[in-house]
């Protein structure tokens, strides 16, 4: 993985995922090491995302590296009409690695072609956010003790949710069974279902999760946003069907864990937070170790 940009989750193989996860487990035991001493990392956030930026910057700082960059395009030369290419060409002279988030899809792939240093995509529009996917994998493996042969429930907006699409692609290496639960308007797109069929991976589609939730090993919740519905009445009718409440967890498997990419709005009721099956806050913390693993393996330090 040395010097290899991480733009899309499909850039890495199954073995490379596992290597990152093993490394992240090492960092979890010992997150403060001086292995990035003398390294300078750029965090270029052409659109703001405090959560992701803090996670990357904490990852670098805890390993003794330094960070330069910007947290919002309006505070940088980008607003003066500089092209992405020129910004990347300038930054690439100064740093050892670029972490970037950009509102346009494909921006990170393009930056990786232009840059002379590796690029880690921290989100390009609705397209890819591979470090999120790797931290999801890490969280699944950590809570289940394995990645293979699990029942993965994806609930909510499966049409626009990039996190569920990337997780589907990544998990496809580990023989999962998928349960897709969504309103009709927000079903998993056909191209992903075709991908699963080609790989011989089982999936089921439902509108309601209550009758089947006892089968779940992982419940991956996503936000159902009002603006995704063409008909506001449909939204009003369906919105409460995709809210997870503590009382619904009574008959679930003991190993079952609830994941969510955060931030949540109301799709997980607050009374779930205290349930030991709620894992989303720890999941976010895992992002730190996974990002430490990604950066140090790309820089060839681990």
């Amino acid at each position, binding site marked *: 993985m040395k010097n290899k940009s991480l733009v*899309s989750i499909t850039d890495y193989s199954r073995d490379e995922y596992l290597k990152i996860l093993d490394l992240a487990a090492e960092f979890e035991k010992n997150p403060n090491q001086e292995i990035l001493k003398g390294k300078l990392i750029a965090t270029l956030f052409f659109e703001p995302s405090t959560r992701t930026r803090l996670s990357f910057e904490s990852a670098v700082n805890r390993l003794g590296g330094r960070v330069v960059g910007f947290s919002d395009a309006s505070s940088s030369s980008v607003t003066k009409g500089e*092209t*992405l*290419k020129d910004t990347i060409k300038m930054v690439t002279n100064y740093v050892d690695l670029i972490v970037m988030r*950009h*509102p*346009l*899809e*494909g*921006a990170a*792939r*393009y930056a990786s072609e232009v840059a002379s240093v590796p690029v880690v995509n921290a989100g*390009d*529009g*609705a*397209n*890819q956010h591979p470090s999120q996917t790797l931290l999801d994998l890490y969280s699944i493996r950590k809570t289940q003790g394995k990645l293979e042969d699990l029942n993965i429930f994806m609930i909510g907006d499966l049409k626009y949710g990039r996190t569920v699409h990337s997780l589907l692609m990544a998990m496809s290496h580990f023989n999962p069974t998928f349960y897709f639960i969504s309103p009709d308007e927000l079903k998993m797109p056909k*191209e992903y279902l075709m991908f699963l069929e080609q790989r011989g991976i089982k999936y089921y589609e439902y509108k309601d999760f209550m009758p089947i939730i006892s089968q779940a090993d992982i419940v991956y919740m996503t936000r159902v946003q009002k603006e995704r519905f063409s008909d506001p009445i449909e939204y009003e009718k369906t919105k409460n069907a995709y809210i997870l409440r503590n009382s619904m967890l009574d008959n679930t498997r003991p190993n079952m864990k609830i994941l969510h990419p955060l931030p949540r709005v109301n799709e997980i009721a607050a009374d779930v937070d205290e349930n030991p099956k709620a894992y989303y806050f720890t999941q976010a913390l895992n992002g730190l170790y996974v990002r430490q693993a990604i950066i140090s393996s790309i820089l060839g330090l681990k």
Partner: protein
Amino acid sequence: MKDKQLIVSAIKNGTVIDHIPARNLFKVISILSLERIDTQITFGTNLDSKRFGSKAIIKIADKYFLDEEVNKIALVAPQAKLNIIRDYEVIEKRDVEVPDSITGIVKCVNPKCITNNEEVIAKFSVIQSDDIALKCIYCEKITHQDQMTII
């Protein structure tokens, strides 16, 4: 009159591209950059065709195309046939083949794609070649044949 007709209908050396769907003639001309060729070019369009109802044909004198040049027209004329002419004889017939990748030519269907917002040349991998589907290497969205805009 007879001589005049001969000039239009036959070339001594060069390439004849036949079975172009008439509606895509000008797209083929633009993909092959024929406007920049200074040898004699003749074309006919709205000719009867059993296959498409109406077809177009282009004859380019003293010009032979590389496979990778000519395969680009597969996007708009997948059934086109090339006749390679030397000394008024057809010495070779060639089909066009849909290439594995496409650079330029087509606009990515995704308005939020970097290629539609900055000066970045669109690049695609061809993921389906019968009913053509192109996957943008940047935004990873798929552009289907019926959504294709040729640039």
